[in-house]
């Protein structure tokens, strides 16, 4: 109740003059006129009054247990702050409640909300709030337009249940939102939501900085990047790594996890996905009707939201991403949910076997095999017709073989042919290679797997087959090179020799 005005009549007169002055100016100023406190009807006045519990992300206020409406007082402070956006890099954020996203607000359908927006005196700018949960022009924006160091109040009734975005709607709006001015307000349906074991609050936003990703120092908003929709960062909860490591979300095996997920934008739509999980239930677009079950990725528009539920069955780390993956890989849109508890290897076994896979040669009669045969005939004809090739000397073969070696073999056997002790057998002065020409051709053609002793050292590695990679001529050349280099000496290998082994 307002106290009776105790001022002398003289002062009252002055106040009246002041009011007249203000009202004559208000139309031209564009300043939102103050229309006075709403006269609440007796049934609303009779409702219990409570102060809303506001939480910073990723936490959510407790579920509402009352089954009747209340008058809820919300006090939200706007503050412009400098905070970490990425390693070694700060950013000037504009916030509701000192965090990005802003404080989570939880009310119940039918509540009458007395909303106070308090703009901190250190703010550079006026701000306001458009709550998508509000029915009325601007969602409260005009009624909450507040100069630095001032406070605005308005009242609304929560008519529609759902999960709603709120955001600043002061021009230039993309800059206010781009600096972090958004959050979520949950209007619980009259009968509440189904219970969940864990509830979290995550919001995605795109940020346009006047420097590169994690470029260091203090970054601020970049207008051209914003206008072109070229974000520097796409973030969950306002910072790279805000939900990673010891800040990761946590749950235990068997729990039902609920994410209240919103997208502040200002521009990007999210393809929201949790790697390794399937959303059991999705309240699509934050509505209050269960819209879909068993969803891999749900699309959340800018200025929109979703509620997803999923039971976590096996332990491990589940990664939250915007599945438009450059945003996850290059711009920061990654969060983590760490689940602890007993394994269930029937649901998920972990890696059971690691074995070598050789791939397969082209099957007989396939188009690829026919084409290969044609090419081989062309090559043979070319060799016969071309005296340079036909008269290929051993030295030329070695020169060509060296090229083949340096493209295909040196990575393991090294340019010096010495291999790597215990891992890759040597070719230089290799007793094993020099002992059997056909065996060497076979190994190059078809690969090798299993134990072998070279120069007295045992190796148990894998050599991939080169029969599909190299032509018969290249195999002859490279074998000629390796058996006539690094102290080795042998006759040149011929294409016929290679072909003979290949035909085995």
């Amino acid at each position, binding site marked *: 109740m307002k106290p009776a005005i105790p001022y002398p009549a003289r002062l009252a007169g002055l106040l009246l003059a002041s009011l007249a002055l203000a009202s004559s100016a208000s139309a031209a100023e564009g*300043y939102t006129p103050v229309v006075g406190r709403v006269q609440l009807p007796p049934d609303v006045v009779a409702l219990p009054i409570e102060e809303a519990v506001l939480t910073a992300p990723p936490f959510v206020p407790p579920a509402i247990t009352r089954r009747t409406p209340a008058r809820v007082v919300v006090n939200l402070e706007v503050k412009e702050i400098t905070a970490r956006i990425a390693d070694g890099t700060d950013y*000037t954020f504009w916030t509701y409640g000192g965090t990005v996203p802003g404080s989570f607000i939880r009310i119940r359908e039918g509540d009458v909300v007395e909303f106070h927006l308090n703009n901190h005196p*250190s703010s550079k700018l006026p701000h306001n709030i458009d709550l998508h949960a509000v029915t009325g022009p*601007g969602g409260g924006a005009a009624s909450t337009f507040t100069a630095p160091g001032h406070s605005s109040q308005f009242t609304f009734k929560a008519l529609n249940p759902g999960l709603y975005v709120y955001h600043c709607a002061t021009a230039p709006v993309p800059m206010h939102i781009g600096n972090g001015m958004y959050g979520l307000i949950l209007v619980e349906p009259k009968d509440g939501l189904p219970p969940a074991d864990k509830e979290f609050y995550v919001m995605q936003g795109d940020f346009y900085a006047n420097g590169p990703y994690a470029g260091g120092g203090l970054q601020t908003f970049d207008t051209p990047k914003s206008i072109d929709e070229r974000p520097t960062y796409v973030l969950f909860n306002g910072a790279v790594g805000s939900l990673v490591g010891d800040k990761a979300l946590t749950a235990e095996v068997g729990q039902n996890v609920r994410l209240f997920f919103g997208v502040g934008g200002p521009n990007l739509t999210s393809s929201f996905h949790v790697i390794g999980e399937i959303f059991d239930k999705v309240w699509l677009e934050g509505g209050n009707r269960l819209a879909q079950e068993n969803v891999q990725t749900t699309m959340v528009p800018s200025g929109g939201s979703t509620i997803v539920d999923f039971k976590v069955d096996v332990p491990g780390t589940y990664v939250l991403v915007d599945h438009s993956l450059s945003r996850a890989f290059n711009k920061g849109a990654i969060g983590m949910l760490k689940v602890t508890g007993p394994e269930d290897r029937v649901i998920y076994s972990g890696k059971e076997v690691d074995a070598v896979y050789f791939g397969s040669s082209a099957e007989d009669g396939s188009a690829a095999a026919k084409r290969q045969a044609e090419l081989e005939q062309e090559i043979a004809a070319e060799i016969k017709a071309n005296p340079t090739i036909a008269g290929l000397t051993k030295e030329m073969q070695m020169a060509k073989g060296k090229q083949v070696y340096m493209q295909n073999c040196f990575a393991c056997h090294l340019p010096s042919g010495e291999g790597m002790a215990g891992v890759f057998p040597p070719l230089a002065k290799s007793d094993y290679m020099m002992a059997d020409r056909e065996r060497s051709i076979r190994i190059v053609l078809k690969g090798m797997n299993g134990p072998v002793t070279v120069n007295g050292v045992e190796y148990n590695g894998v050599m991939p087959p080169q029969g599909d990679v190299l032509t018969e001529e290249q195999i002859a050349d490279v074998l000629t090179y390796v058996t006539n280099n690094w102290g080795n000496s042998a006759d040149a290998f011929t294409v016929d020799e290679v072909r003979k082994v290949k035909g085995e």
Partner: protein
Amino acid sequence: MPRRRLCFPRPLRPLLAVLGLALGMGGHALRGGEASVIIPAGDYRPITRATSDPEAIAVAAFLLDILPITNAEFLAFVTAHPQWRRSRVSPLFADETYLRHWTGDLDPGPAAPADAPVINISWFAARAYARAQTKRLPTLAEWELAAAAGYTTPVGRDEPAFKQDLYTWLSAPTPEVLPSVATARATLHGARGLHGLVWEWVDDFDTAMVTGESRADVATDQNLFCGGAAASATDPGDYAAFMRQALRSSLKARQGTSSLGFRCATDLPPPSDQP
């Protein structure tokens, strides 16, 4: 506009103006030498306008203070004009934000260094100060014309260095103690600190067209959807202009903020006065 005429009690002008001038000059070396610069005539293009409004407003050349008014200068003013001291100011002309960062009526204190721009000043107080100097506040069009200049060219928003400094300042919260006005870099016409120190009152700040609901800022239709503010904008990419307009629209003449100061302007003498 009638309220401009009934703004404040007429001071004992001849005596106090001389006193204020003396104190102001004595108390402040920064404004020594030329205190103001000529802003050449030009066109001001409002960022938003109704379709019936002109695209450009012609602005005559005028004299503008090089620097915003400092705490020392405002101290001289309230010393000479007791009715503008914090404890005595009429609530009609200044709300409780008035000079609230000062320690006392005549003691700016540690939060208000002598050479920092004065803030927490109502529009009425800013006008009274200007009148006491036999000056006036610049009009919105004059201020915007002067502020459009970059460091080296008449169009600052095409200068990368200027834009970088501008948006860095616009994005940053207001420091608890403002820096000296001497830290501001001069722009083309010689004025300093039009950006980068504080917002500044203009004489007709209340003509800004932004309402609290930015997306309905079109005179002909109050119900435009999200982003409507841009529908009537001449250059929707000029975010800085939107921010100044939003700031002005959020103000009332009685109130100040911790980032709002002012400077004064003067008409150039008409040509006929010159020999």
